[in-house]
């Protein structure tokens, strides 16, 4: 048990230290969206409904003289029945307060001008809307008795006399309201008669269209569905065509039947494929909506052969998305065949080209032809991305410039830059992405080049301030947590190495205040992290000495910082125990850069004691590599057996620590959320290092010739009992007896637990 204690203690202490990392957030390329048939910013309200809304607001502005269209919108479209009831009662001088709309300029204008007719129209319309919403619900039961809602509507209806119908300003609105009320009260004949009478006198076109919709609804109620649908279709009133809360397949089916070329269909298709896109990246159980893919696919297939459908490309595209979602990229690819030949604009052609690139990458066998074609597509997307950036508003550009490059920041950043997101998805996605496929086919350098360009060029293009700053100027800072002499838990902000004096003799762990969210936490780094040092070295070579124009082009748009890459290569060599090569590369990493890194190395890698800080934290990795290299030389060439044996012991401690307590020597992250980056302690490197370390320790004790050296051996590994019992007369034992009472006492008296 005594032997186990140091290990248990060490294991426990490793836990808090384990979170000392480059960032706990894992971002995957599949979080980007690729399926699109309309731009990201496109939404139906801006195309169809806003049309009437905007025109109506302008008309209100003209009729009332109020210039504040935003307030008109708020009052007319967002004001509730209760809000307008308050205004109505206030105007009627019922002693009521003006209510929630009292600060609205449009309403204040109406009150100021005592425009009772306008308030009557709006209050009546709100009354109607409320009842209509009730009636549209399947829960509505149409009774013939006079319920409160019907009484209210009758009041509104009766209010509309000839004077109001012929009102110069609001006559159109009163006519429309009268038709709506008659319809809601079930007076079908009246609606049709009114339409006969009013249709020529309603001057404002949008109101005439809306009124015509009510004629259609009346036809519908009378069982004259075909007459009704023809009006709905020509007036683009889809909400009336569809059942309340219609599911996607139901809605698509009905719309395809009545308005096969409507924007509403495009809108709903986009909504659906975006939903599938999100679902692919989600680890949550599939939403019931996605279970309807078969129905939607069948509808899409129907649309492709439907002669009434003009925009067949969008249907082919949607069908391809569903097939891809089903895990059938080959079928999806053949679905896309000839898609751009149909009736479609440049935008849609681009979408098809990008989706084809995505699907082809998933299915293709990697060879030279494919690689050349893929690079061509990457270049084309690169140009498209430039255009997208140019088209953004200055405000948006400024917002993107200030994002911090963190995983969530990246999503926001590329929300308006579709090509960036799509390129990330195509190149960096899991095992099916272009980079992963190239790497699997032995084209690792090309994979890294493309991945680097995809991941990092966006920061250059957008001139991202935040990342630029952390990459060039900001030193990382750290919080240290430790148990003080008073036995209480403390946290201190530390900036300089000298601050660590306060840690001596205490258990502690350090939490870095992360400055650079991006460089060690992205799919490109993840790819690099899984490659061998020699591959990375070859990649570095192409950065320094590009072989051709493609290399030059890719390098010019990648992050090729010397410190960054030399540190990664050096670290990989440490991982592979090639200390000479590691030292060669780590020598090229500037101390300034090391200060900016999120990881800061504190523990002495040649100590068996976790509370012993390192003597040097600036060139920590380099010094470790040099020391290990010199120990290797000593193990091989030292003539003196004792010196050779002690070098073996030292080397074995360093080796074990470099994958254990001092894991930052061989990797960049440990702790939670290691779904993507390598947890070095779980790799064959760590297992082999442990075996080698154990083997060397045994070999070392057998190599040592003198008692003094063996005494030093036991002292070094903390086996003080053996030191006292076996070598009591050694100089080392005497030294320990003098300077380390605790340790000596421990070997005598087991009740004292720690040296």
């Amino acid at each position: 048990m005594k032997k186990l204690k140091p290990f248990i203690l060490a294991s426990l202490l490793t836990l808090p230290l384990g979170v000392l990392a480059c960032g706990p957030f894992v971002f995957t390329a599949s979080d980007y969206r690729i399926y699109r048939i309309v731009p990201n910013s496109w939404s139906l309200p801006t195309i169809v409904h806003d049309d009437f809304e905007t025109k109506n607001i302008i008309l209100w502005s003209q009729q009332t003289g109020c210039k504040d269209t935003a307030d008109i919108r708020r009052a007319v479209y967002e004001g509730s029945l209760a809000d307008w009831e308050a205004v109505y009662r206030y105007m009627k001088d019922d002693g009521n307060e003006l209510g929630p709309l009292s600060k609205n300029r449009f309403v204040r204008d109406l009150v100021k001008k005592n425009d009772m007719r306008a308030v009557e129209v709006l209050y009546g319309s709100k009354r109607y809307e409320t009842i209509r919403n009730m009636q549209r619900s399947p829960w509505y039961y149409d009774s013939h008795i006079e319920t409160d809602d019907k009484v209210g509507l009758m009041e509104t209806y009766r209010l509309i006399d000839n004077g109001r119908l012929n009102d110069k300003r609001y006559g159109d609105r009163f006519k429309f309201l009268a038709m709506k009320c008659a319809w809601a009260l079930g007076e079908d004949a009246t609606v049709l008669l009114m339409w006969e009478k009013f249709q020529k006198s309603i001057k404002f076109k949008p109101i005439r269209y809306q009124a015509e919709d009510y004629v259609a609804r009346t036809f519908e109620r009378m069982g004259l569905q075909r007459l009704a649908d023809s009006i709905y279709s020509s007036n683009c009133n889809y909400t009336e065509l569809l059942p309340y809360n219609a599911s996607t397949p139901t809605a698509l089916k009905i719309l395809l039947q009545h308005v096969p070329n409507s924007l509403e269909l495009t809108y709903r298709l986009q909504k659906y494929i975006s939903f599938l896109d999100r679902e692919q990246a989600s680890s949550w159980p599939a939403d019931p909506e996605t279970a309807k893919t078969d129905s939607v696919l069948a509808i899409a297939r129907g649309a492709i052969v439907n002669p009434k459908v003009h925009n067949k490309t969008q249907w082919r595209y949607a069908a391809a998305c569903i097939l891809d979602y089903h895990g059938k990229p080959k079928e999806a690819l053949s679905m896309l065949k000839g898609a751009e030949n149909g009736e479609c604009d440049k935008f849609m052609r681009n979408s098809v080209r990008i989706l084809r690139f995505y699907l082809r990458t998933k299915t293709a066998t990697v060879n030279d032809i494919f690689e050349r074609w893929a690079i061509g597509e990457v270049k084309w997307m690169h140009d498209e991305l430039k255009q997208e950036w140019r088209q953004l508003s200055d405000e948006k550009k400024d917002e993107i410039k200030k994002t911090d490059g963190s995983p969530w920041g990246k999503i926001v950043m590329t929300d308006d830059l579709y090509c960036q997101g799509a390129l990330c998805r195509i190149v960096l996605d899991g095992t099916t992405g272009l980079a992963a496929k190239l790497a699997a086919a032995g084209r690792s350098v090309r994979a890294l080049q493309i991945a680097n360009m995809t991941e990092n060029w966006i920061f250059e293009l957008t001139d991202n301030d935040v990342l630029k700053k952390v990459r060039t100027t900001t030193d990382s800072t750290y919080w240290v947590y430790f148990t003080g002499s008073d036995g209480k838990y403390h946290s201190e902000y530390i900036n300089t190495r000298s601050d660590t004096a306060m840690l001596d003799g205490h258990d502690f762990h350090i939490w870095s205040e992360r400055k650079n969210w991006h460089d060690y936490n992205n799919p490109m780094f993840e790819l690099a992290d899984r490659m061998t040092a020699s591959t990375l070295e070859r990649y570095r070579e192409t950065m320094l000495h590009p072989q051709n124009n493609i290399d030059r082009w890719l390098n010019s748009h990648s992050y090729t910082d010397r410190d960054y890459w030399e540190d990664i290569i050096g670290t990989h060599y440490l991982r592979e125990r090639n200390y000479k090569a590691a030292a060669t590369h780590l020598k090229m990493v500037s101390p300034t850069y090391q200060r900016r890194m999120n990881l800061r190395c504190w523990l002495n890698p040649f100590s068996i004691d976790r509370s012993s800080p390192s003597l040097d934290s600036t060139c920590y990795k380099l010094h470790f590599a040099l020391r290990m290299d010199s120990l290797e030389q000593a193990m091989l060439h030292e003539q003196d057996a004792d010196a050779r044996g002690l070098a073996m012991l030292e080397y074995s401690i360093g080796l074990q620590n470099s994958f254990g307590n001092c894991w930052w020597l061989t990797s960049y992250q440990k702790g939670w959320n290691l779904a993507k980056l390598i947890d070095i302690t779980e790799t064959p490197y760590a297992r082999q290092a442990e075996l080698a370390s154990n083997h060397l320790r045994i070999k070392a004790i057998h190599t040592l010739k003198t008692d003094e050296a063996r005494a030093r051996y036991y002292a070094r590994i903390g086996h003080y009992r053996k030191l006292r019992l076996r070598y009591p007369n050694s100089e080392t034992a005497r030294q320990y007896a003098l300077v380390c009472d605790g340790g000596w006492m421990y070997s005598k008296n087991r009740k004292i637990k720690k040296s």
Partner: protein
Amino acid sequence: MPQHTLERLYLCSMKQLTLLLAFVLLASCHTNKGKDPAAPAHRGIYHWKTTYNPSQWERDWMKEHKIDRLYVKLFDVEPGAKHGYDDWSMVPVATTSFRQKLPKELDVVPVVYITVEAIRALEQSSDYNLSSRYAEMMVTRIERMMAEHWGGTLKEVQFDCDWTWNTRDVYFLLCQRVKSILHEKGIRLSGTLRLHQLSQVGYDYESEDDEIPFDRSLLMCYNTGRIGDANIKNSILDFNDVTPYLKRYKKDFLPCCDVAYPVYGWGVAFDEEGYFVRLINSHTLAEGKAWKEAPVRQAAIREDWGEPADIVKTQTALPMLDNKHTTILFHLDSLNLSKYSHEEIETFYSR
């Protein structure tokens, strides 16, 4: 004999007498409770058809048996997805159409049948307020229907649902919401309780969730056997099937209980190996059409009816009836009711 001995004897016999009287009293109480329950305060019958248009015979039958409560099913509630609505939604279907006004002289109780699938659909939503919204819509719809077709003062609304242990909490939450709306209007909520559901309430005495959310419960003493089981005697009511369920009854959780008995029947068709083929309604049976256009597999038909003997035995065994309870028969259908004699019906209603 010494005086004190006599006194002792007297005291002793007085003690024995008191004990004897107490025992007799207790025993008589027990007997009354078990074998001779109080007569019902109300006589009710269900109307469970999609068109309300009772025949003259049915109207006379109600008068003859002094029916004072009519339980009318207004509509079913099904998952919206079945009808093209959202997956988590519920919609009313099979709304009863009224060819006649509901009798004003009767106390009419509207009944809503909620399918367990609808409750599962509701469960899919993460919107906690959805139950409240549905509760409001249900109550409004019920009120509108009753105002349109009856016009009397609504005193009670009844919910019927074959809820299970898994759907219980969602259903109960919906009922709680409905109950609180109804209470504001002075209306009580009653709910049906199937025999198998008796074992699924009353576990956690401290938890409000476990409380039955009804002002009165209605114990449905029918459909006691598995329809598809060829080995059972009667799928509609078999006293032997009822008794195990009654053991699970916890009185604290069912303080107010009405009871319903079956006065209907059906045919259950099986194939040669005793596998269930189909259910045949009593009208088809009566018209002798059970074998016409029958599936090829159909080899035998078992006719199940609510047998008077089983109904009476069940009535005797029920321990939970108070003197305000309503005895209800299922359901108002001249063909089924004509199978029972006047005396049999009166016997059902006398307990």
